[in-house]
């Protein structure tokens, strides 16, 4: 059973968001990394890049698959996790910690209320699995 921390917000594209003041940290969920298998490469944007909601901002690769990662909230990238360049396995080993991908400054932080709660996300992945 995938680990889904209570204090984060989630998207149906399997990203998580942790909002602290003006900073929203984004990564992919434990469920997502599990589905993908061993991550070998993470393509992340540059600090300063701006994206709309649901726009792809990067991708995660395993040996035989690529998944795009989508912007949970519109905004500008203020930090990126450089450690993933050398240690993409952080996404597998510590998806909600060392495996974070970017920090964004959301255009509208209130947008986070539209995302899924942990319970809603868990229901969603159960639903997806049964399809």
């Amino acid at each position: 059973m995938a680990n889904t921390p209570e204090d984060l917000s989630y998207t149906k594209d399997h990203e998580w968001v942790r909002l602290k003041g003006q900073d929203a940290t984004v990564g992919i969920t434990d469920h997502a990394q599990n589905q993908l298998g061993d991550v070998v490469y993470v393509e992340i944007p540059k600090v300063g890049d701006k994206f709309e909601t649901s726009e792809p901002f990067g991708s995660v690769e395993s040996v035989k698959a690529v998944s795009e990662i989508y912007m949970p909230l519109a905004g500008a990238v203020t930090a990126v996790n450089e450690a993933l360049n050398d240690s993409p396995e952080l996404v597998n080993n510590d998806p909600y910690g060392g495996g974070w991908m970017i920090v964004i400054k959301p255009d509208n932080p209130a947008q986070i209320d539209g995302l899924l709660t942990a319970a809603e996300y868990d229901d969603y992945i159960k639903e997806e699995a049964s399809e």
Partner: protein
Amino acid sequence: MRYIPNSPDERRSMLADLGCQDIEEIFAQVPAALRLTGPIGIGAALSETEIISYFRRLAAGNSVDYQSFLGAGAYSHFIPVVIDSLISRSEFFTAYTPYQPEVSQGTLQYIFEFQTMICQLTGMEVANASQYDGSTALAEAVLMAARVTRRDKFVISDAIHPQYREVVTAMTRYAGFTLDLARHSEAGTLDADSIKIDKETAAVVVQSPNFFGCIEDLQALADAAHEAGALLIVAITEPISLGLLKPPGACGADIVVGEGQSFGIPMSYGGPYLGFFSTLEKYVRQMPGRLVGEAYDEKGRRGFVLTLSTREQHIRREKATSNICTNQGLCALMATIYLATMGRRGVREVARQNLQKAHVAAAEISRLKGYGLRFTAPFFNEFVVRTPRPAAEVATRLYARKILGGIALGGYYPALGDSLLVCVTETATKQAIDDLVTALSEL
């Protein structure tokens, strides 16, 4: 048919297993109206003897006994006999793309060796497992530069092989790129004043030695490109030149591609050849084509695998870095065996002989009345001769003496109607060079 093992009885019994009386039943899926009722029209099968004599007769219609000074992207070089012997090992030539590494280590290891030697020769950091040929490798380089820089303007030298330019034009036709032609100077190399680089330029694209055989100043071109944030793409049609010339990687090139036919591959009327493709490590994820990398098994034994495959069409589909699938694996093997056999000294020696012989021929021809060298820039094994009458006519007159004396440039460059592109490799003996000089003097 001798290539089909089963006897008629075996076939019947297999059909019976499937509950079929007649082979037609097995094609039940194909609507009857779409099935052929008669023969295709190829005719009856020919025996082995008949086929060999048919192809011998056709081959006799090709003049390979002429002394040839043709180059322009395909070169006559000495080919060590071990190449054909080794590539005829059917474990090499009847194998597929090495997707299953445990039973493909032979292919994977030689590709790794090929990648390494291309890097050593070009001075680049990574090379792929091959492209179709030099022309398509160049087109892929242009597409890659657009991905790397996110720009879409290119400055392309007019001294790039004209057919290569045609391929780049065709393959990028629907990409919406702007291709600006930069002109060659009176020296035969790129005219610095005709190169217009700006902040939208993705890359400067040159060939060296260029189509006229002249060696470009790659360092200066790289500096100019980099200043505007653009890349330098270098195409090489005569890779033997790398035995002698400063590698483009040491001059600041970002992508170096070319034709590997000179490395032990027969000219074979234009193919199959070998496109090579090399670049810097930082751009590896934007590269087209297959890559082989080192890997270890559970017991710690070294092996090789196809790697970074997520760039490719079978995984990333319409977002792949290229649509290439089948490449030129066996030709890469030929080049690998060539480079291994010639080795560090042989590659150097072949390059030296090409340089010396071409310069002797150029000097002697330019001493003839009415002839001269069209360009002044340093050259490797090809040079352009100014002819006293239209070069096409000169070439035609040489045919009567069983000499293919060069390529008349008027068809490619209207202003060069009096120019003949002559190539002299190590396969041209002193006698052959003398014969050419004598023939030209007597025309």
